[in-house]
């Protein structure tokens, strides 16, 4: 693999199950870093991950992971990690034993597997509990074991499927911190599949939005942040005169409850708002930058590709 090349690429990737098209001519390119795969249930996220892992054969199109075809060369899975959304942990064995076994399954020799299991449990915050049977763990601890088994063999790329599912707010924050740490400290690239926009927005560098099996949006998080940036203002008087004054200045404005929302909020907008407020003699009660929820991306066709 050439340095800087995307770690995962899919070209016109289609997967059909009978009449159902789960993924439809998707062109996907995932570079190093943390990439969010956003989509509602049934959007094709899990199918995409299974295709990337080589567990399904594409109906048409091609997929390459770490420069290899994962269907034809399953050894590449030794450099991939996967954390499923559903329950997948054995209840009877300890976390230390389980992670050692998972490391050996990925190709590590037994002595290295034991060392890696202990290290990984330390990094995921389970070192003290490592000899307890997993069946007695809390939901948050089980999620950490699931992440640990995905990282224990030091993969180059890890697929995380809804890693915050079932966690309380504190547990969710801890898990997202671990996900960020996975890339920033461990150097492992991540594909974070989620339907929770806030998780993806706070954690990822890039976002891919799937809808109905199609890629409808993809790009840097910063781009989405810019695209979704707005300014919310509230005035005590002369609301209609303010709207007219803003529109004369070419500022797109929309009524939002008792206030107004201004689109495309770059630096110049604040000058226009100041001037319009003076012209309309509208006393300002509140002005604050706001972000449009990424949920809206699901309902917007096209967009940046």
């Amino acid at each position, binding site marked *: 693999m050439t340095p800087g090349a995307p770690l995962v690429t899919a070209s016109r990737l289609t997967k059909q199950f009978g009449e159902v098209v789960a993924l439809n001519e998707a062109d996907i390119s995932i570079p190093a870093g943390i990439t969010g795969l956003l989509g509602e249930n049934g959007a094709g996220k899990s199918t995409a991950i299974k295709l990337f892992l080589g567990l399904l054969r594409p109906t048409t199109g091609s997929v390459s992971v770490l420069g290899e075809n994962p269907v034809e060369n399953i050894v590449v899975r*030794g450099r991939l990690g996967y954390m499923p959304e559903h329950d997948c942990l054995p209840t*009877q064995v300890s976390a230390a034993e389980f992670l050692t076994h998972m490391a*050996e399954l990925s190709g590590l020799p037994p002595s290295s597997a034991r060392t890696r299991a202990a290290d990984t449990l330390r990094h995921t915050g389970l070192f003290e509990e490592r000899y307890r049977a997993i069946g007695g763990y809390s939901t948050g601890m089980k999620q950490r074991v699931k992440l640990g088994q995905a990282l224990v063999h030091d993969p180059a790329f890890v697929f995380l499927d809804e890693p915050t599912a079932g966690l309380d707010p504190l547990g969710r924050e801890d898990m997202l911190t671990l996900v960020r740490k996975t890339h920033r400290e461990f150097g492992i690239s991540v594909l974070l599949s989620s339907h929770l926009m806030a998780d993806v927005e706070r954690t990822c560098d890039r976002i891919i939005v799937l809808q109905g099996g199609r890629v409808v949006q993809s790009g840097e998080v910063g781009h989405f942040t810019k695209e979704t940036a707005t300014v919310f203002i509230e005035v005590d008087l002369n609301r209609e005169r303010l709207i007219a004054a803003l529109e004369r200045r070419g500022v797109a404005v929309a009524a939002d409850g008792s206030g107004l929302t201004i689109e495309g909020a770059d630096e110049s907008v604040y000058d226009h708002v100041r001037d319009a407020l003076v012209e309309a003699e509208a006393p300002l009660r509140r002005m604050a930058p706001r972000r449009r929820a990424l949920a809206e991306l699901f309902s917007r066709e096209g967009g940046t590709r």
Partner: protein
Amino acid sequence: MSAPAPTRATTGTVFDIGYQPYTGAREGRGSGRRAVFKDGLRISLGLGRGPRAKVLPWFFIALLASIGLVMALVAGAVERLGGPGSAAEANLPSHSDFYGIASIILFLFAAVVAPELLCRDRREGTISLYLVRPVTGSDYVLARWLAFLAVMLVAAWLPQFILLLGLAAGDPSPTTYMAAHWLDIPKFLLAGIAMAVYATTLALLASSFTTRRAYASVFLVGLFVITAPFTIGLASEIGGKAGQWISMFNLTNIPVHVNDLIFGKVSEITSEAPARELGGTVLVAWYFAWTIVPMVVLWGRYRRLTP
């Protein structure tokens, strides 16, 4: 008197060296297969699990070993009480009879322990973590099959070795005894393989249809225990060629017929079986049909498995 030399205080410091990438060897698919095999051995014997997981497998292994021990002790006692050669004259059960005597225990062992190798991974979803690693469904099921086969072989062979050592030790001249009976060793090893392959395959096949160990165990116990009296009764009632074929469906007898052919001697439990009259070729072909077909079905169920 000189003052004691000053001692330097010894202090330890723990450094967090942070995350260390793995730079060692990656052994690929072979390591994955070995890991599944090793894990299968540990599950079968309850190793690395709580005491309850150890009870059943070790109970059955101890029970089988004790049968071999009792057979050896009885032969030794007869030899000592009746004089040299009296055990042989008394026609006491020996290596050729062991699998006939212990077959039902071997099948119960398989019925109770084997489902744990497949059912739990599917019920708990752990199978999905195997299949996203460099291991295919075929690798997984083959490694599990080999693991349980290895445990079954130990359970089948251990009592035979105990019996052999007991018989040799009970003989006035152990070396003469071994020289005269050495051919029993390859025979009981081969017959043990026949028993183990048959029981392993059927038990794992039944386990592949359910995620509940108890369902698989109950089904297998029914299959092995209930078919025996049912087919014996029906075969003797109907008689003739049809009775012989009905007798072939006595599932506990199928590998014992092979044992009889290997030793060239009919076991106690198959001596009355009408199936015996169908001949060695039919009995061996029937045995292979009952092992190869289930093996192919079992493989087919895991070959294309995806999480």
